[in-house]
């Protein structure tokens, strides 16, 4: 029993760390540009498929090279999608709903393209690091440790980027006050595109990391979109710190509910918690209105 509970806590921590990486990406776009990206889950699958392609087509067996190769692809793709699809909509009155619609269309387009290109069968990736750490009764796979470290590392890197680079600081400025940022000469349009691109990279790398634990499927991203969405709403949309806490709380909740009641209850439990939270605190844990 005790060992099992520790196992559940560990798996909750590991899932929580990857969810944190992906939820931060989602909350970033919302916080900066108030746009909501329905295709977010499809970028998760894209990460997985990119890694799979590099593995099986290019026969490269190093995760280091996979990250080096796929991150620029995701970055450029995210940037272009924002520039071509989302940016032209911003001038309209009802752009919020139109952005949701266009990204939903994009999600359908991408998911079914994966299906046509790669087939409906699940793709699996080799483990990033074989073997496991055994302390007494506990077994901790090295793979999980690496996933945890890389996710946390990714978030720390992102934090460093926001606080210490010029682009990062302009991202924060636009999030705080778009008009003010524009007055002092920050290129708002570029910041919108850049944040979209960064968030694409975050969810895509999340996809690469989780693809080795779970599988890559054409529609696997929806689960992730919903979870990342629940996490950001729970933590407060636009609040990065809130998303971090929320990711670990909900990752834990998921692990415990999945272990005790079964996986079918996970989504229901997540929504129950979210609805209760929103009923009491409509802005989420750490969000602000506006």
């Amino acid at each position, binding site marked *: 029993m005790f060992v099992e509970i520790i196992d559940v806590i560990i798996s909750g921590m590991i899932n929580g760390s990857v969810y944190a990486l992906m939820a931060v990406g989602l909350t970033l776009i919302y916080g900066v540009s108030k746009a909501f990206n329905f295709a977010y889950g499809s970028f998760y699958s894209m990460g997985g498929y990119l890694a799979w392609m590099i593995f099986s087509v290019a026969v490269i067996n190093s995760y280091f090279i996979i990250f080096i190769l796929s991150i620029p692809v995701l970055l450029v793709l995210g940037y272009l999608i924002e520039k071509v699809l989302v940016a*032209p909509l911003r001038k309209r009155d009802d752009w919020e709903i139109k952005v949701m619609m266009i990204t939903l269309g994009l999600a359908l*387009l991408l998911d079914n393209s994966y299906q046509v290109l790669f087939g409906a069968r699940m793709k699996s990736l080799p483990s990033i690091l074989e073997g496991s750490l055994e302390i007494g009764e506990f077994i901790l796979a090295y793979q999980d440790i690496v996933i945890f470290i890389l996710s946390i590392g990714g978030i720390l890197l992102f934090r460093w980027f926001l606080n210490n680079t010029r682009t990062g600081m302009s991202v924060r400025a636009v999030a705080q006050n778009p008009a003010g940022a524009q007055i002092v000469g920050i290129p708002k349009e570029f910041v919108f595109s850049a944040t979209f691109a960064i968030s694409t990279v975050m969810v895509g790398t999340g996809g690469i990391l989780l693809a080795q634990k779970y599988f890559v499927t054409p529609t696997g991203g929806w689960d992730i979109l919903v979870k990342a969405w629940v996490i950001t*709403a729970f933590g407060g949309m636009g609040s990065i710190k809130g998303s971090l806490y929320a990711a670990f709380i909900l990752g834990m909740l998921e692990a415990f509910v999945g272990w005790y009641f079964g996986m*079918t209850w996970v989504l*229901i439990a997540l929504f129950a918690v979210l609805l209760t939270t929103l009923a009491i605190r*409509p802005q989420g844990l750490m969000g602000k*209105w506006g």
Partner: protein
Amino acid sequence: MDMDWKRNSQLLMIIFGIIGIMPLFFGSTNFIMHILIMCLIWSVVASCWDLIMGFAGIFSFGQVAFFVIGSYASAIISAKFSVPPIFAVILAGFVAGFLGVLVGLPCLKLKGAYIALVTFAVHMILEPVLKGDIGRAIGTGGSRGILTIAPMNILGYTFNSSDPVPYFYLMFFLAVASSFIILAVIKSHWGDAFLALKDSEQFATCLGVSAFKYKLIVFALTSFITGMIGGFYAHYVGMLSTRMLGIDLFVTLMVILVIGGVGKFPGAIVGSFITIALNEMLSPLGSYRPIILGAMVIVLVLLLPDGIVGLIQKIMPKKKSGKSLIA
């Protein structure tokens, strides 16, 4: 306002007049009649979605969920309690309406993307619920779905899906009725209240417009109509599965709204006929169809900002009264 109401109802009558005579040409082709019936069904669902999203400004993404809830509810009520389908359908409407209010309640405190999340959440959890233990206990048949549903029966006349013309006129009657209800809502003081709330919620509430009341009413009304039409759908097709909850149908409905124009009411009806017909034409393409559907959303959102109705408005400039041809 009166002029507007008159013009819009005239427009609706023209649209439905054209639809109503279609069986004269296609009545003998069951395949086309089936498509026309589906067009009518989706036109109602899309119009409801337009009412809640386009007019009331509530980003509800739960419309397909309420449709599925209504269809399952009607199938289960008619099978388990041997209620005649026509009453089961109305009860299903009330089930969906009640759930709509239940979902609407937390949404009233929320804004934009949060409402989209909560309502889409209903959509996302519906599948595991219907497939899981809870669903099986109610009688959804789990992942197999419900395979036999009693056909619609009104006053002793049984509608048979192999004879589609009576079915067509049943759905036609429903579509006409719900369209005029929706038009009445849009053109009544409710519609003005929605418009005021959408433009500036703070100012509207200061003037004494109750956001709470109107938003809850629109949730109840749209989910009631959507659930009821879902019930009619269930008795028409005779079987149900959770496949309807796939993102495919959801996006198809969205294409209807994009083509028709968001917040351009009779547009959704025209949009549904164009979209469903187009979708049928694309079906030989198999798995490429959803790709084209997705690409269509993208292109149409970018190029057709206000749908077909908006395009017509642009081509035919506004009358000098300042009021547009179609509100």
